[in-house]
């Protein structure tokens, strides 16, 4: 029975991957419906009841569309771009506990793994922007690289203070540590939460930080030249990355799968924990969408100012303060 | 245009260069005399007169309308026509003089010393508006369907001088609408009884078919019973009718005049080379109208030339290329030229240049004939083997005004003679004889209707068999019809409205043809094929436009140093000066 843990891992991996992939189309639909409601419109309501099959129709459309490779494009990188964008985001989900003990891999360096994996997405975007042989794509790719690298620093620094508080880089341990409501990191590290959440928007190229693909300036940014399922992959990657980031926010700051009090042991507790986690995840995703249809886009210099001159110093100050507080706390105890 | 007041410009006889202006100082015409092509009288005395207070000097006897027109003062008129005697019956050209109480008609007023004319007084404006109102009493409001609208003088003058509404409440007088002859309908309702057409038939064609019948309100132009408008100049009455009363059946409802693309060219119907304007729409010739050239056709053209344009897009038009055993719709000009040159060159090399014959025709432009000459030189064909086909003579017609339809139906006989040799037309029979006798082994025929002309040649018997026995036969034809042998190199050629080139008329005047229509299916022209043929023989550098070729051949026409542009719209007589 040496293979059974592996089998279990595979089943968990497939389940969670499938769940995330199923979530994406409905996230797209939710995005469209919510944006419509915010703008006093109706949104997609033709395909299926209440437009629920619209994502399916979109996927079918994308699959059957012609894939165009621009003349004099770098064919290898051009095909590699969408894959490199999608795969890391999907892999990152492996380390996130979606319920009590429900995790593909419980690794001791979970936080680092997720941060590393999501950072890899920048390669996909830069490759796509470079390989398209298009000035808009190239500018989009460049902006994206600069933006992700800038905000990665603020994000990492924010995380350090969280890690200092929890004393662990394992996501399962961080989750366990937030069982009680008052122990949620959002209360213990509110400034880190704001910095992390802001940086998460930037990492995901979401409004108000969607400069890499801002339609009014760069046509479509790095994916201007992409069509068919290659474009679909970028699209998918964007939403998967959004889910991963939301899951990270939930896990790190919003008490993970904990409803705020101790759950009963056994299967029931696990099921409730998954439900709680999902609820929190959806709430964060909704906030993502809500922000997108509320705030206008930052100017590029504003973006860089915010990242380097505000978030990074603030996060550093936060580390210092946290360090002092943690030291004093430990000494007191 | 020469300023009238400039002394010398008119007193020196015939100095105005012929391509300078279509209407140089107008002719003093004594009232009632038959009109002839006129030039400013050589010894007319210059007299001073006043036009709207401005002192001017013109030759005595100049028509007031013309004198004013040259000063930029347009006196409106209907019945006046520079090619006809003035009648003074439309009352539109009323002007005031200092020494008459009532206004006078400008068209019947020759300039005399001390005349003081006013053309823009308030009372004249009222008078013109009144004249127009009376003309419009019975004129139907059918401009939308009238073929004249757009070039109608009644429209123009009503717009400029008339009132914007009618006070007429009585029903309009209904007059006849009928077919009066060759190509003409009379729309009686539209007639304003200016009698231009009547005077044309009296003075120009001299046939007198048209007359004004009835009186007063009922008067209208008509023909006598059993004497329809049958003369070879009848089409001109449609052109000179200031309204839409005389309408051409040929042009009826064909196109609105403002859509027409107009190209100045010449008629190739006979050796006169009347100056015409080709009017096309959607690449189809809609009508041909005469263009004023004092030295050739004055304001007129004959019906034979006028209606002879259907062949341009006719069924018989040859549009295919046949050589190297293939019939094709499009080829590159290099291929066609090479096919032509190789066929002749092969025979010239194997049998000697004396076995090659070249037959042009009198329908070539000078440029095409010149290229044939160059081809003959390149193949070293002896002069006796270079000929030109001509069409048989027709009937010469001379009209009362002196307008002449030439008996010679070959438009460029003179030019071809000057370029291919004076005896080119005489050689043709000999060449055909040698074809029949087997003396010639290769023949190039470039003609618009070779099947007709070859059939008309002297003793055509045996010619068809003889052509079949030739080693090489190259035919450039406009219309297919003849059954040429299978190995014939057949190439299309272009019609008169597609050519760019020059021709010499029977008076030795060099005039230009301008392309008015695009060649159907963008076929190649003779000018391209022959240049490519010469190029493949190594005797030509690159394909040139007609203008460049003309530069080389101008000395042959007696016009050394004259450029294509200088030939102008009105052409140049031999010697280059009037």
């Amino acid at each position, binding site marked *: 029975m040496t293979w059974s843990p592996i089998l279990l891992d595979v089943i968990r991996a497939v389940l969670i991957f499938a769940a995330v992939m199923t979530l994406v189309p409905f996230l797209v639909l939710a995005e469209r419906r919510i944006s419509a409601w915010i703008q*006093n419109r109706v949104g997609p309501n033709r395909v299926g009841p209440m437009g629920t099959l619209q994502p399916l129709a979109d996927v079918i459309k994308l699959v059957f569309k012609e894939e165009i490779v621009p003349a004099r494009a770098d064919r290898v990188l051009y095909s590699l771009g969408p894959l490199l964008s999608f795969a890391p985001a999907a892999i990152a989900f492996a380390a996130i506990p979606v319920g009590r003990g429900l995790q593909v891999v419980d690794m001791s360096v979970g936080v680092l793994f997720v941060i590393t994996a999501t950072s890899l997405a920048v390669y996909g975007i830069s490759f796509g922007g470079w390989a398209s042989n298009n000035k808009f794509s190239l500018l989009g790719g460049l902006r994206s690289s600069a933006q992700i690298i800038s905000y990665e620093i603020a994000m990492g620094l924010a995380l350090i203070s969280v890690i200092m508080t929890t004393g662990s880089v394992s996501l399962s341990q961080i989750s366990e540590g937030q069982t009680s409501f008052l122990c949620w990191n959002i209360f213990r590290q509110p400034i880190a939460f704001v910095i992390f959440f802001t940086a998460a928007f930037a990492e995901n190229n979401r409004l108000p930080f969607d400069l890499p693909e801002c339609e009014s300036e760069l046509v479509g940014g790095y994916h201007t030249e992409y069509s068919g399922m290659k474009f679909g992959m970028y699209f998918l990657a964007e939403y998967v990355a959004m889910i991963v980031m939301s899951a990270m926010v939930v896990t790190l700051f919003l008490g993970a799968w904990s409803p705020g009090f101790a759950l009963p042991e056994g299967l029931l507790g696990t099921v409730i924990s998954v439900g709680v986690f999902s609820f929190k995840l959806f709430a964060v995703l909704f906030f993502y969408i809500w922000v997108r249809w*509320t705030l206008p886009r930052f100017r590029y210099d504003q973006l860089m100012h915010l990242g380097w*001159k505000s978030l990074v110093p603030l996060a550093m100050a936060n580390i210092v303060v946290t360090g002092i507080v943690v030291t004093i706390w430990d000494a007191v105890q | 245009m020469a300023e009238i007041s400039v002394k010398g410009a008119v007193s020196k006889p015939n100095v105005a260069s012929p391509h300078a202006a279509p209407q140089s100082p107008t002719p003093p015409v004594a009232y009632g005399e038959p009109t002839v092509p006129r030039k400013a009288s050589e010894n007319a005395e210059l007299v001073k007169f006043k036009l709207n207070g401005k002192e001017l000097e013109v030759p005595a006897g100049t028509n007031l309308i013309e004198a004013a027109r040259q000063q930029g003062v347009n006196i409106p008129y209907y019945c006046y026509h520079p090619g006809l005697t003035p009648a003074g019956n439309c009352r539109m050209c009323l002007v005031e003089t200092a020494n008459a109480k009532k206004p006078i008609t400008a068209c019947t007023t020759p300039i005399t010393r001390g005349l003081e004319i006013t053309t823009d007084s308030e009372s004249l404006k009222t008078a013109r508006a009144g004249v127009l109102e009376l003309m419009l009493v019975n004129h139907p409001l059918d401009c939308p369907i009238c073929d004249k609208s757009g070039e109608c003088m009644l429209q123009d003058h009503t717009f400029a001088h008339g009132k914007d509404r009618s006070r007429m409440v009585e029903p309009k007088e209904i007059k006849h609408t009928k077919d009066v002859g060759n190509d003409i309908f009379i729309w009686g309702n539209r007639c304003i009884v200016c009698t231009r057409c009547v005077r044309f038939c009296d003075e120009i064609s001299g046939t007198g078919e048209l007359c004004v019948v009835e009186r007063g309100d009922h008067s209208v132009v008509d023909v006598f019973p059993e004497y329809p408008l049958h003369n070879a100049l009848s089409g001109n009455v449609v052109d000179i009718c200031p309204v839409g009363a005389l309408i051409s059946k040929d042009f009826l*409802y064909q196109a*609105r005049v403002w*859509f027409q693309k107009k190209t100045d060219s010449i008629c190739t119907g006979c050796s006169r080379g009347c100056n015409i304007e080709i009017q096309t729409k959607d690449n189809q010739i809609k009508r041909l109208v005469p263009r004023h050239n004092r030295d050739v056709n004055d304001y007129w053209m004959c019906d034979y030339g006028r209606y002879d344009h259907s062949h341009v897009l006719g069924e018989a038009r040859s549009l295919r290329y046949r050589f190297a055993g293939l019939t094709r719709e499009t080829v590159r000009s290099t291929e066609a030229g090479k096919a032509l040159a190789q066929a002749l060159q092969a025979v010239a090399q194997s049998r000697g240049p004396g076995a090659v014959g070249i037959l042009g025709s009198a329908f070539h432009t000078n440029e095409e004939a010149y290229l044939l000459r160059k081809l003959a030189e390149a193949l070293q064909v002896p002069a006796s083997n270079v000929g030109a086909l001509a069409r048989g003579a027709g009937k010469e017609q001379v009209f009362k005004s002196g307008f002449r339809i030439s008996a010679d139906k070959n438009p460029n006989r003179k030019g071809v003679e000057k370029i291919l040799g004076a005896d080119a037309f005489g050689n043709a029979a000999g060449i055909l004889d040698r074809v029949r006798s087997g003396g010639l082994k290769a023949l190039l025929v470039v003609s618009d209707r070779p099947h007709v002309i070859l059939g008309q040649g002297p003793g055509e018997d045996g010619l068809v068999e003889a052509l079949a026995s030739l080693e090489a036969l190259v035919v450039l034809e406009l219309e297919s019809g003849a059954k040429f042998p299978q190995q014939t190199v057949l190439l299309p050629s272009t019609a008169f409205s597609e050519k760019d080139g020059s021709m010499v008329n029977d008076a030795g005047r060099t005039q230009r043809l301008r392309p008015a229509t695009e060649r159907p299916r963008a076929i190649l022209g003779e000018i391209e094929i022959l240049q490519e043929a010469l190029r493949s023989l190594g005797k030509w550098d690159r394909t040139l436009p007609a203008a460049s070729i003309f530069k080389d051949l101008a000395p042959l026409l007696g016009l050394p140093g004259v450029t294509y542009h200088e030939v102008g719209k009105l052409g140049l007589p031999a010697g280059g000066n009037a």
Partner: protein
Amino acid sequence: MSQATEESTPAMNTQASARIGKSKWLFRLYLPAVFKGLFNTFLHLVKAKGHKTFTIQYPEVARPVRKGYRGEHRLKKDALGREKCVACFMCQTVCPSNCIRIVAEEAPWPDRDKRPKIFEIDMLRCIYCGMCEEACPCDAIELTEKFNVVSTTRTEKIYNKEKLLSN
């Protein structure tokens, strides 16, 4: 977003803080404005405060066509059911997009001289400006209120005389 940024110009600052009437520091934190915006969009989202959906569900609910709308063309008929058009080419002349093609012929009727043999409008070229209607001396062409101008082929969009008469 979390702290004051420095790119705002002084002029904008005075103006904006005067308008907002709050401390400069709080304004430059942006977060109050962000939350105000979020609250506003949330009101739209839940359709509170009188917000309502404006979308008209087109195929089921057609929007009323305003007076003077310029849709597809129609050739009018006279009392005898013949086309009113006399083929005067005025519409073709005035047409700025050159989409009208007319070939005239003699009318077979005693009371009329000319009629269109071919009357075609290339609806793909047409810009629906209505100049043809204005130019028509016989009131024979008009623009209808038909706006559903869908076809599946290009040739269908070249309307001939019959189509225009029955439009």
